[in-house]
């Protein structure tokens, strides 16, 4: 039977998968339109992004206290390295994108309201050169996250459909099909 990820890690993985993918679509959608969709997507973008920030901190703690199951021993070394690298890239982007979004708004001198009466303080000085850098970095990071996620999705399916090595199953719930 394949060893699985710790249950909290699996729950966080799928919860955040839904939220992060939703955020990517919301972000790309909101900057693409002048319709009223822009307004409500941006209103969701900020609090949802902040939620992801809180969740990723919990997730990183979970990751550090509970080692994940080892990758299959017969995986080539380069594939193992690619897997490790892309996982840390995903963690890094989930952690830094909300911070970049928050500091983008700070450097632009915007009020940062998440919900009625809920405000965040600025975390960067009001400075338009800095805003330009942060805004570009937020956009670039978001698209990098999307393509890293696509590779991640492709790799998971490859493990499951081609290698049939139980790697996808190690992140699933219910009866263990490999068991």
């Amino acid at each position: 039977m394949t060893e699985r990820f710790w249950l909290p890690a699996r729950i966080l993985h799928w919860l955040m998968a839904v939220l992060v993918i939703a955020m990517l679509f919301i972000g790309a959608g909101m900057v693409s339109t002048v319709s009223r969709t822009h307004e409500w997507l941006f209103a969701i973008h900020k609090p949802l992004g902040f939620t992801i920030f809180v969740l990723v901190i919990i997730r990183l703690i979970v990751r550090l206290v509970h080692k994940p199951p080892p990758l299959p021993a017969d995986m080539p070394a380069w594939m193992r390295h690619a897997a490790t690298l892309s996982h840390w890239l995903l963690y890094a982007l989930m952690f830094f994108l909300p911070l970049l979004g928050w500091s983008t708004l700070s450097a632009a001198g915007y009020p940062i309201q998440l919900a009625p009466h809920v405000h965040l303080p600025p975390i960067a000085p009001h400075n338009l050169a800095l805003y330009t850098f942060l805004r570009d970095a937020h956009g670039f990071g978001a698209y990098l996250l999307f393509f890293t996620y696509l590779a991640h999705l492709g790799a998971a399916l490859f493990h499951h459909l081609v290698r049939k090595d139980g790697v996808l199953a190690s992140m699933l719930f219910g009866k263990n099909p490999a068991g």
Partner: protein
Amino acid sequence: MAQNPQDPNSIIGQLSRNKGAAALIAAVVGVVLLLFAWAGGWFGGRLGPGKIADALQVHDGLHEGFRRAHTKGYCFTGHFDGNGQGTRLSVANVFAQGESRVIGRFSTGGGMPDSPDGRLVFRAIALSITAPNGEVWRTAMDSTAVFPVATPKAFMAFLEATSPVADGKPDPAKVGPYMAAHPETVAFINYLKEQPLASSFVNTRYYSINAFRFVGGDGQTRFVRWSLDPTATPEWMDKGNLEKMPRDFLFDDLIKRAAAGPLTWDMSIQLAAPGDKTDDATVQWPEDRESVKVGRLTIDHLITEDEGPCRDINFDPLALPTGIKGSDDPLLAARSAVYSSSFRRRAAEGPHPSFATEHKP
């Protein structure tokens, strides 16, 4: 990657032995990619903020570092003093009795940084009001009670139809059909011609134009528009003389009047009655709708854009405090998106000296 297609254990080797799985993986990844491209507006010619910002640049030329509209402007600082009357209508802290700090900007309509003031265009005031509890309310207001178009699509059509062609003038072959299709724009032009024209920024009345919603302490939501009513004596100017006025006469007059003492306006909140259109900025509500005076704006200091605090602010009309919300007016979301696009562009280009370097208080 040490990948040799001949190697049966390489990814390519394994995929070519599992053509069905390979196709399935490609299809799933491809569909997600297409959905994302769709979300990002890659198909179907969705009207995005960049297209409107581009059209503004075509209309009035590209002036790096400047706002894509209301380009010629001047900063000020002051305060807003709520008189407590507004708390019945909105829980926004700015309406409680007390002083809020204000950073603002006067501007004239159009996208050129040193255009002549003697044109029949919008005069405008933009405010960023920080209430005692720290919440910020931004509003950009014009000197007309109505706007020439009701939707972003119509705004885009307006820009395209009225952009200058070869001889520097709009193409009548485009303007004609546009006006025929947009009676609201014709009505606006007539309104501009008929309305008396104030002699100064200081005795001009400014309007939110768009409708918003106020959320009251009783939980009730009301559709409203607001205006700034000048306390200065009304004086009108002859529109026939506009073209003969010195290039910067409005701003020079402003600087002179501000030197003589604080400038003040009263803010009124106009309440919609059932049936009033809240999603159409081309339609005025009747003058006799209930209106509540909620406080007074005082401008203490003028300062150029180059040295002042307003240049680097985006007066996004949807930057609203708790107690004020957008309405169903489609211009609001469009303004928010396009102001953001304009802001990003001018930020990336960096500041350029404004006309005001030669017109200091």
